[in-house]
């Protein structure tokens, strides 16, 4: 024990003596530790951290339904019909089966209105979770009955704190949500989110929000109406596979007499954490990749410091030789050097933790949804991750060099009286540089692939002029407006918006780009059947006359709609260019007669318009057609208002919301967002990938460059006599530069070759996260490798120039 203290003291003194080295090494490691801690914490929050307030969360499952259809192939739904839920309630392998309907609501009216997200949960929900309230009580079966009276609401701790100032007397207060008044019965425990990826602000009884879906309770028997997500708890002793088999059998039996049975294949049960389930596979996969890449950065940083320590250890050969001569065994020497490394790593760990806490906030905001990022706390798990990263860094960066240095024969050093150069070509050092270069090449190529994917995504013409369009969503009917009042409210908002100097035009639609659209029975007079597209459809949207101009869609042939076209029974239609090509081929679509749904009258095609994206920039070709919005009708409730702005939409958005919010008295919350913000999530994964891979790639490149520099600089110092001899034998300084750069290039080329091989191997797994660029894209491979080679040349140039400046007289001096 005394010996350990002695070694600790020696190590501390050695670390303090070489403060410059210690700080350099600690900063290098801190970059890696910070990256690993920040990213692994995100991964942990996303996939592994068990949800708060849930008892035995590993037994709670989410149901996913699998279907096959000739049109769409195999696909999966996480929302199903209400009858499916009641079927599953009969499963004996599940002790509690709860349904949820997620939606939004306006809290308050007029200028004071805000938007909240809510979950309509069946009575079993909280009991199944085993949750204990923070205040009051949670929802129970009595709240969800048909005769429940004033509906109850349970606030999330976040909403309670941010909106109601953590008012301890909140229980019993009323809450105006849309057109209903709820009574607050309790507050859920802090951090409780039921494992949802985007947790709700409050929970209300399922029946209370189900009425949002329409009058009556048709949803209770309609198997074609998919809107509930189902969660359940496995009964004791039941395995997920057994429960899945039972659930599949129940659903199959329940759907046996329904046309909806066609295509149902099976039920699968996923984890309580939604993000760990199949719907978020891409996002989770990206998070895994990013966390793995942060480990790569840590490995590079550790290899770098190991290299520095090796060089320093060799330079300290005399000190070590003396210690050995004085009786220190190899174990003691290793321990001392290792302890020095551990002290440096500990300092790096503290710095890394700071990087993770401060820099990690921005990172989490970028990668996680706001609610999840906000809830993130620096707790024991984050510390444990940082500690693990620090230990890994300490092991790689100091134990390996300590073993290597102390194993060497140090006797000649003493015989030379310490004048020996101490220089040896170290395969380990060269190997570490090769590894660093290889890992850097992989990261840079990864960054390149994501950048190319993002560029390919951004290059897709979505059809709309997204930067100049605002999308406005409001649900007057939800707030109690009847049909005509809703229609008048939308008309008033259109008028108010048009009067604003920043607005060029306004249009109402039933059906929303990037949101939803419908496919209904469509016939073309004179055609027996319509060609089927693999993307389904054709899809219909009902729009007002200014829609195309507002969205920036050009009318290619014929004419657009006018206000006069807006009738109860539309007589005209417009079609997208894809539909024109796929349905009509060489025939002229203008003048053709569309028979929509059960209509008996023709809707004559009067124009062909540019195609806009239906739901995603990555979608296949979509056949779209448009009818004039009816002056009144069932669709009034789900209208969307689009505004074309005179300048950038984002600059007008802030002024539009209060304008529209007060255009009609008692209007519920009016959500205004730019179309660009609506589109952005489709690019998000690529942007995150490109940014973080790019950032990691840059750090890795810097570290690998430093590593190569340190090896070459050390080599030049150690080889000064040799360089002097070469000069005396006729070498030119430029030749010596070539010699050093050549040494660097040899290591770099070997590392680059390994890196490219690694990138190709890893690329296959990465392929699903890329868009329109193969993982073996030659241009990306060449550019990635080229970038690393240039960095290596730069890193080599300084020691090379130093080599060229070697003074042969000094180098060869014998005394």
């Amino acid at each position, binding site marked *: 024990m005394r010996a350990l203290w002695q070694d600790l003291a020696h190590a501390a003194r050695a670390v303090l003596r070489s403060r410059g080295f210690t700080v350099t090494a600690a900063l290098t490691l801190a970059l890696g530790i910070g990256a690993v801690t920040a990213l692994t914490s995100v991964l942990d929050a996303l996939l592994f951290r068990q949800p708060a307030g849930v008892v035995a969360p590993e037994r709670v499952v989410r149901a996913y339904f699998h279907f096959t259809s000739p049109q769409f192939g195999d696909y999966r739904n996480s929302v199903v019909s209400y009858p499916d839920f009641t079927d599953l309630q009969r499963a004996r392998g599940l002790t509690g089966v709860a349904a949820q309907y997620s939606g939004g609501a306006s809290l308050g009216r007029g200028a004071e209105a805000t938007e909240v997200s809510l979950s309509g949960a069946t009575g079993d929900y909280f009991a199944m979770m085993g949750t204990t309230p923070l205040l009051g009580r949670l929802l129970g079966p009595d709240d969800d009955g048909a005769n429940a009276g004033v509906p109850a609401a349970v606030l999330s701790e976040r909403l309670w704190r941010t909106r109601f100032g953590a008012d301890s007397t909140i229980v019993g207060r009323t809450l105006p949500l849309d057109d209903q008044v709820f009574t607050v019965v309790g507050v859920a425990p802090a951090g409780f989110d039921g494992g949802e990826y985007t947790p709700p602000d409050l929970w209300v009884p399922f029946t209370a929000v189900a009425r949002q879906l329409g009058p009556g309770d048709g949803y209770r028997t309609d198997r074609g109406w998919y809107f509930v997500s189902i969660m359940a708890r496995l009964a004791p002793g039941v395995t997920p596979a057994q429960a899945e088999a039972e659930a599949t059998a129940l659903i199959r039996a329940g759907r046996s007499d329904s046309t909806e049975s066609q295509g149902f294949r099976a039920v699968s049960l996923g984890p309580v954490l939604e993000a760990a389930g199949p719907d978020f596979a891409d996002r989770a996969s990206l998070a895994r990749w990013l966390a793995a890449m942060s480990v790569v950065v840590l490995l590079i940083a550790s290899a770098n410091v190991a290299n520095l320590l090796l060089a320093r250890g060799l330079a300290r050969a005399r000190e070590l030789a003396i210690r050995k001569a004085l009786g220190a065994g190899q174990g003691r020497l290793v321990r001392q050097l290792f302890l020095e490394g551990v002290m440096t790593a500990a300092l790096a760990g503290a710095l890394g933790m700071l990087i993770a806490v401060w820099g990690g906030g921005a990172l989490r905001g970028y990668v996680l949804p706001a609610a999840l990022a906000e809830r993130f706390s620096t707790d024991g798990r984050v510390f444990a991750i940082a500690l693990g990263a620090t230990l890994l860094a300490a092991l790689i960066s100091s134990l390996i060099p300590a073993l290597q240095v102390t194993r060497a024969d140090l006797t000649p050093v003493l015989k030379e009286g310490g004048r020996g150069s101490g220089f040896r*070509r170290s395969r380990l050092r060269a190997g570490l540089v090769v590894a660093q270069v290889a890992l850097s090449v992989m990261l840079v190529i990864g960054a390149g692939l994501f950048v190319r994917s993002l560029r390919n995504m951004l290059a897709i013409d979505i059809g709309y002029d997204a930067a100049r369009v605002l999308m406005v969503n409001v649900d007057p009917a939800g707030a109690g407006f009847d049909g005509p009042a809703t229609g008048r409210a939308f008309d008033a908002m259109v008028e108010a918006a048009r009067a604003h100097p920043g607005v060029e035009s306004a249009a109402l639609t039933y059906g929303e780009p990037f949101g939803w659209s419908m496919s209904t029975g469509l016939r073309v007079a004179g055609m027996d059947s319509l060609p089927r597209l693999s993307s389904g459809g054709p899809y219909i949207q009902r729009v007002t006359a200014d829609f195309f101009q507002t969205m920036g869609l050009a009318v290619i042939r014929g004419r657009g709609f006018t206000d006069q076209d807006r009738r109860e029974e539309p007589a005209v239609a417009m079609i997208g260019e894809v539909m024109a090509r796929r349905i009509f081929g060489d025939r002229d679509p203008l003048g053709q007669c569309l028979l929509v749904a059960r209509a008996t009258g023709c809707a004559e095609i009067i124009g062909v318009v540019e195609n806009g994206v239906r739901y995603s920039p990555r979608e296949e070709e979509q056949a779209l057609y448009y009818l004039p919005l009816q002056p009144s009708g069932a669709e009034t409730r789900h209208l969307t208002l689009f505004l074309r702005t005179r300048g950038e939409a984002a600059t007008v958005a802030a002024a539009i919301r209060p304008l529209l919010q007060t255009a009609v008295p008692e209007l519920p919350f009016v959500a205004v967002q730019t179309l660009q913000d609506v589109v952005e999530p489709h690019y998000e994964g690529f942007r995150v990938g490109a940014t973080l891979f790019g950032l990691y790639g840059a750090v890795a490149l810097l570290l690998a460059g430093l590593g190569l520099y340190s090896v070459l600089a050390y080599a030049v110092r150690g080889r000064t*006599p*040799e360089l*002097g*001899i*070469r*000069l*005396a*034998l*006729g*070498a*030119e*300084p430029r*030749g010596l530069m070539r010699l050093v750069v050549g040494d660097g290039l040899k290591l770099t080329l070997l590392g680059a070759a390994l890196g490219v091989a690694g990138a190709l191997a890893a690329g296959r797994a990465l392929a699903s996260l890329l868009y329109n660029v193969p993982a073996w894209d030659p241009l990306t491979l060449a550019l990635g490798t080229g970038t690393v080679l240039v960095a290596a040349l730069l890193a080599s140039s300084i020691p090379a120039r130093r080599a060229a400046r070697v003074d*042969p*007289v000094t180098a*060869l*001096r*014998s005394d």
Partner: protein
Amino acid sequence: MIRLVNVEKSVDTRPSPTWLLRRIGLDIPKGEFVTVMGPSGAGKSTLLAILGMLDAEFRGEYWLDGQPVHTLKQKERFALSRSRIGFVFQQYHLLDDLTVAENLDVPLGYRDMKSAERAALVADTLDRFQIVGKKDLYPRQLSGGQQQLVAVARAVISSPALLLADEPTGNLHSEQGREIMELFRRLNQQGTTIVQVTHSEENARYGHRIIRLKDGWLVDGAAAA
């Protein structure tokens, strides 16, 4: 072959510069074997470095085979040095990571020769110096005398007109030293001009003339005999 006119060399020290060589005037005809002697710090090695063009920071004139070294650009100086001069050092200065044959090849590698030509020359030299059996050995596997023999072989492999030797036998015992000096004598008889720096009077006797330096001044032997 060599003419030095008022060659001076100093290094910056405070408060006044330190003189390493003062007003050296020297003529060495082709084929001469000159010994430079003097106490430590007299400027012997400095003079040798200037003659070998390892040091271009001097004042005065240095003519080699009629070429004004003092006005040559670096590139021209390197070219001239490569074509005329060979070096032998006290510490042998063989490259540790290269075999005997590879060490002999190093200076040829700097002289734009084809590899076949170089291989032939290396083989000839190994034969000439009777070290064929050692061609694949590394310097650390050779005795001091053998290492210096290789160093001399390396110095003359490109047939330099001028061989500069700095204490060539300083690290050898007397028998090995004599063998090396006999080798120098033979090379000189074959036409190589030799300038050696030594402390040994015995080695000095192998040469035609002794130049003595003291405190940077040439005190004896400036003119050819």
